[in-house]
């Protein structure tokens, strides 16, 4: 079994980024760096099987990426929609770390 195969699979799904209120790529880069540091999860395409968490990155509250068929691809989901995370207001400057914290809760939770 390879090292990667033991890591939890996390996917990112963008809304399409037509006119984002926040910099979604900053969140993506932050999560990629966190994945390298922690080593217990990896970012994979949403098309893969057994995705544990999908982080849905939407640039505004319209949340075009937050669709049932997207959420159904993973066991759990997190939704960024402009300056909010899962419906809770979060300023853009704190958004990356807030997503990391929420993701960390999912990764460390008892099955």
């Amino acid at each position, binding site marked *: 079994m390879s090292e990667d195969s033991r890591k939890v699979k996390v996917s990112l799904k963008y809304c399409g980024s037509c006119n984002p209120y926040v910099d979604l790529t900053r969140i993506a880069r932050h999560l990629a760096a966190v994945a390298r540091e922690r080593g217990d999860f990896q970012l994979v395409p949403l098309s893969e099987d057994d995705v544990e968490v999908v982080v849905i990155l939407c640039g505004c*509250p*319209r949340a075009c990426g937050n669709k049932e068929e997207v959420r159904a691809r993973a066991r759990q989901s997190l939704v960024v929609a402009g300056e909010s995370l899962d419906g809770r207001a979060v300023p853009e400057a704190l958004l990356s770390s807030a997503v990391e914290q929420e993701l960390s809760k999912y990764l460390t939770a008892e099955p």
Partner: protein
Amino acid sequence: MSMMTGKEYRESLRKLKPEIYYMGEKIESVVDHLAFVPHVNAAALTYDMALAPEFEELLSATSHLTGEKVNRYTHIHHSHDDLVKKVKMLRALGQQTGSCFQRCVGHDGLNSVYSVTYEIDQKMGTDYHKRLVSLLKEVQSKDLMISGAMTDVKGDRRLSPSQQKDPDLYVHVVEKREDGIVVSGAKAHITGAVNSHGHLVMPTAAMKAEDADYAVCFYVPVDAPGVIHIFGRQTNDTRKCNCFLDQGNVDYGIVGGEALIVFDKTFVPWEHVFMCGEYEFAYELVERFATAHRQNYGGCKTGLADALIGATYGLAQVQGTDRASHIRDKLVEMVHLTETLYCCSIACSCQGYALPAGSYMADPLLANITKLNVTRHIYEIARLAQDISGGVLATAPSEADWKDPQVGKYVDKYMKGVADVPAETRMRLIRLLEGMTCGTALVESMHGAGSPQAQRIMIERRANFERKKRLAEKLAKIGEQPLLVC
């Protein structure tokens, strides 16, 4: 009982005893007084059209609370489809009335208070949302018309509510009792106030801790003790009482009918209080209400514009100018301006989103763009209508002279346009255009749902200039160059 007919709505108003004054007279019945009949008629159409097969898809909805069919004006939006249908409903009603039908203000108030009370309760542990849901069930089951009362009289605009010399210049709590609160103050320009069943009163602006007594939201029946209505004048309003043809829009008047509502130590039981001192939520409530209401204006005003364009086109035909290229070009411009406004309202609805309470609101930036465009486009549409109509819009003889046995024959002879259309047709179109473009109706497009500067402030708050600057910097190769994430 659930959805009322227009007739049942009128009968329900007859059972109420609100305190109303107009032109120095205490009004006994708004349903029967000629000054109010056009406004009652317009509101009544929101009831009748909800039951008409050709309009029920827009004007009715399914209650998320009971699963019952309800009038859309009592419905809480729960999807993008609901937001879009509201706009389409407004356009349909605007086309049918050529006037304001008043009921949207309370509808927007209910939606705003619904979502904000949920969030207040989440943070403060209060039970405002439960109270609001209880009221909403009553509003839906009885099909009540609720006015939305937000704008305070404001006194000295340089001063906050608590800094005013007269404390009543913003509605505020004067006493908290075991069974409720006592409020004083006044709300201005309240559309449909005199022919509503009750008022949903909301704070008018962001509040600070020292203004906590002014952060108050509540519902009162229209005939509650201490609630006094002083009905406002409109351009040519006496024509409603002594003319027929000269009214122009004979059945529905020119605007919604606005009143000053005075609260003179009015008692409100706790069950009808939805904010009392939670000043940090006042701005959110104002913004949500403003967004909902500004979303509307590319709906209702485009419906009116459809009728206005039709009247202008009809008058051009009667006057024999309809084939002139510059007239056709101006008519096309009127359509272009109208449909631009409609695009705005549809767009802000499609870009709307869900709130923590589960209800939906329009996109605030695009809703404010919608209303700001209305403050310009409706004036330009009216200007073009006046251009095409000619000066007769301001000089036409009266209905009384047209009917006069001595001079009527001259009015009939010299008011004629093309030979095969009677002068009466031309005079009717002129009066309709006069009412829609020459007075109070235009001011409503400027200041209804907030003055243009209020929209500019909200647009600036949401403009995100820094992001736009980053886009330019990327193109101009200034500073760090972010790459696509692959």
